[in-house]
């Protein structure tokens, strides 16, 4: 009998729901039945409500089963991995997969993340090989033409940032990958690092060769132990195979990199505070200018890019800028890996061209709430993102489109709440979070967030005269904070107040009281 190829994900979202025990059960059951199994530990396909999702390969086609518990494994073998209640059919035919355009996440969930051979067999390193034949200026043109903008949320054109670093004169330049993915509702960076780490390595190597940087760092948050482990292993393999080192793929270019682990500070996702942290200092925000592109890590010119931005670089160079640019809407070009999370029936990672409406993401793709209750609000873009009511569900997913509606797409996390959500409580939480995580450098954030919690508490006690005070405080924080933590905390607070006023008047007392 030929070997049975079985895939059990090693993504943290699968491990957190007992994927390890499922893998053990598969191997134990195979041994009892004397069936030879080739077990592949892949990343996650992104259908997180189905995790652990097990796949078997039959005649070159992968068939999915999920969510699988260790107790289901025996019955799945009994059914010869065919007709079974957990059978989902060929993975690629599942509606959730068919509706996506996977460019950045093309390999995630498909390959063993630590197999460089599998990576190459699926298009990996083609972009880097092409880049090695190009001049720095031509690479910048390619990046600019692709239209890629910073996927951390700021949306700054990546090609322009790279060009600033490329043209700077210095004896040392750096590439820094921002993997401090602290926004609630986001996990795309984690999934990419755990599911296709070589794409990040390749993207960073291309960036290094383009701008003349020979060293790179991934600043990776400590809350992601699996990603830290996988990234470190991948770097070790890439170095051993000559992808990294004194001669990248045998070329005249040198590039090497390492992982640096954060220490639980949300504000370190802000690029200047990240650089201070990387230097071994308190993660306090720096004033700009100077731009990190000119004076970044240790005062040297530094590219600081998000993981998804860097992880998208290889496919741009592999398939050409035009291929990437031709997807999208308006000034938001290419695809965006949207993370659908919170109280939603079908949560996970959905990569699609810019332009899908928020309502389609929540109702059609996400399938509405898991609790079955009506959707009350959707927070887009992490803890600094606005709460959108159903009346704004026709907003298309794009940088300018969300900005025009008083929100932001941020790192493209979408968190769904049902009608039991207390929006005053969520506004309070936004202020509390800002107070806990403030770096303390600027007054509007450091003190404003504390006063914000107190003011929301006054409103909660029925003192509606504090509402104008909260609005005024938000204006001050928005206009005069140094970075997005203090500057954007007003987004969730004010959107909650504007769109859900009833929650702020629930205990309103008579003025005479």
């Amino acid at each position, binding site marked *: 009998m030929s070997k049975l190829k079985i895939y059990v994900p090693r993504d*943290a*979202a699968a*491990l*957190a*729901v007992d994927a390890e025990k499922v893998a053990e059960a598969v191997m134990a059951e195979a041994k009892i039945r004397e069936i030879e199994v080739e077990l592949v530990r892949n990343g996650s396909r992104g259908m*997180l*409500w189905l*995790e652990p999702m097990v796949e078997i390969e039959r005649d070159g086609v992968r068939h999915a089963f999920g969510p699988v518990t260790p107790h289901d494994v025996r019955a799945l073998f009994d059914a010869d991995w065919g007709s079974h209640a957990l059978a989902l059919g060929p993975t690629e035919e599942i509606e959730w997969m068919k509706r996506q355009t996977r460019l950045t996440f093309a390999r995630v969930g498909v390959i063993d993340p630590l197999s460089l051979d599998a990576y190459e067999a699926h298009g990996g390193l083609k972009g880097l090989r092409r880049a090695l034949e190009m001049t720095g200026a031509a690479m910048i043109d390619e990046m600019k033409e692709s239209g890629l903008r910073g996927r951390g949320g700021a949306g700054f054109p990546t090609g322009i940032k790279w060009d600033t670093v490329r043209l700077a004169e210095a004896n040392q330049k750096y590439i820094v990958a921002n993997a401090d*993915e*602290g*926004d*609630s*509702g*986001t*996990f795309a960076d*984690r999934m990419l690092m755990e599911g296709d780490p070589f794409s990040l390595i390749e993207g960073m190597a291309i960036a290094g060769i383009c701008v003349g940087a020979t060293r790179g760092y991934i600043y990776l948050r*400590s*809350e*992601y*132990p*699996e990603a830290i482990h996988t990234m470190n292993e991948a770097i070790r393999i890439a170095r051993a195979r000559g992808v990294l080192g004194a001669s990248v793929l045998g070329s005249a270019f040198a590039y090497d990199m390492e992982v*640096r*682990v*954060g*220490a*639980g*500070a*949300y504000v370190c996702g802000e690029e200047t505070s990240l650089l201070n*942290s*990387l*230097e*071994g*200092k*308190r*993660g*306090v925000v720096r004033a700009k200018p100077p731009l990190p592109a000119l004076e970044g*890590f*240790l005062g040297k010119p530094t590219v600081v890019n998000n993981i998804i931005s860097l992880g998208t670089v290889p496919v741009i160079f592999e398939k050409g800028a035009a291929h990437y640019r031709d997807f999208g809407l308006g000034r938001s070009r290419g695809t965006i890996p949207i*993370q*659908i*999370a*919170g*109280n939603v029936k079908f*949560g*996970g990672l959905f990569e699609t061209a810019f332009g899908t409406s928020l309502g389609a993401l929540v109702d059609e793709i996400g399938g509405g709430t*898991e609790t079955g209750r009506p959707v009350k609000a959707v*927070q887009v873009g992490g*803890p600094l993102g606005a709460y959108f009511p159903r009346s704004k569900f026709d907003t298309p997913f794009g940088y300018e489109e969300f900005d025009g509606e008083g929100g932001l797409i941020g790192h493209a*996390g979408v*968190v*769904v*709440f*049902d009608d039991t*959500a207390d929006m005053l409580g*969520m506004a309070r*939480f936004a202020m509390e*979070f800002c107070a*806990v*995580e403030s*770096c303390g450098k600027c007054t509007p954030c450091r003190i404003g967030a504390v006063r914000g919690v107190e003011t929301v508490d006054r409103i909660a006690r029925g003192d509606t005269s504090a509402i104008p005070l909260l609005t005024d405080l938000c204006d001050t924080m928005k206009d005069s904070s140094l970075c997005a933590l203090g500057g954007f905390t007003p987004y969730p607070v004010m959107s909650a107040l504007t769109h859900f006023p009833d929650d702020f008047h629930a205990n309103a007392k008579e003025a005479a009281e």
Partner: protein
Amino acid sequence: MPTPPAPADLEGRLGAILADHATFEGPLLPILHAVQAEWGYVPPEALPIIAEGLNISRAEVHGVVSFYHDFREEPAGRHMLKICRAEACQARGGQGIEAAAKARLGVDWHGTSSKGGVTLEPVYCLGLCANGPAMMLDGRVVARVDEARLKSLLEEVDA
């Protein structure tokens, strides 16, 4: 509870950690992570030695240790339970799990239970936002936590 390291032990081990990081650019965070991995917290006695090794002031080292949520200035319990408080977990009933954990352990945030020695810490996002409520017990991530699962996990660590 871990006992504070003996001075000779501390200096020897710390010297080795500093030597391991001699070529690092920006070595302080990796050093502090290594120190915490060794003793479970950053012993105050270590600060002047690290400061001298890196040629920075003791105040600078203290500033960094106190800035980051991860670094502990005193030992934690035998086990560390971090529960996600962020919005996506709240949307999936996280506050109920927070309350259940506090009640069962008999502590508030940052406290250590008398039974089992479990230190309870908040965490803001483990990246398991579609499968919340999520938590991390001694470095192991757990998702889709309900009260029954919380109970069995805490029983595993005798709390």
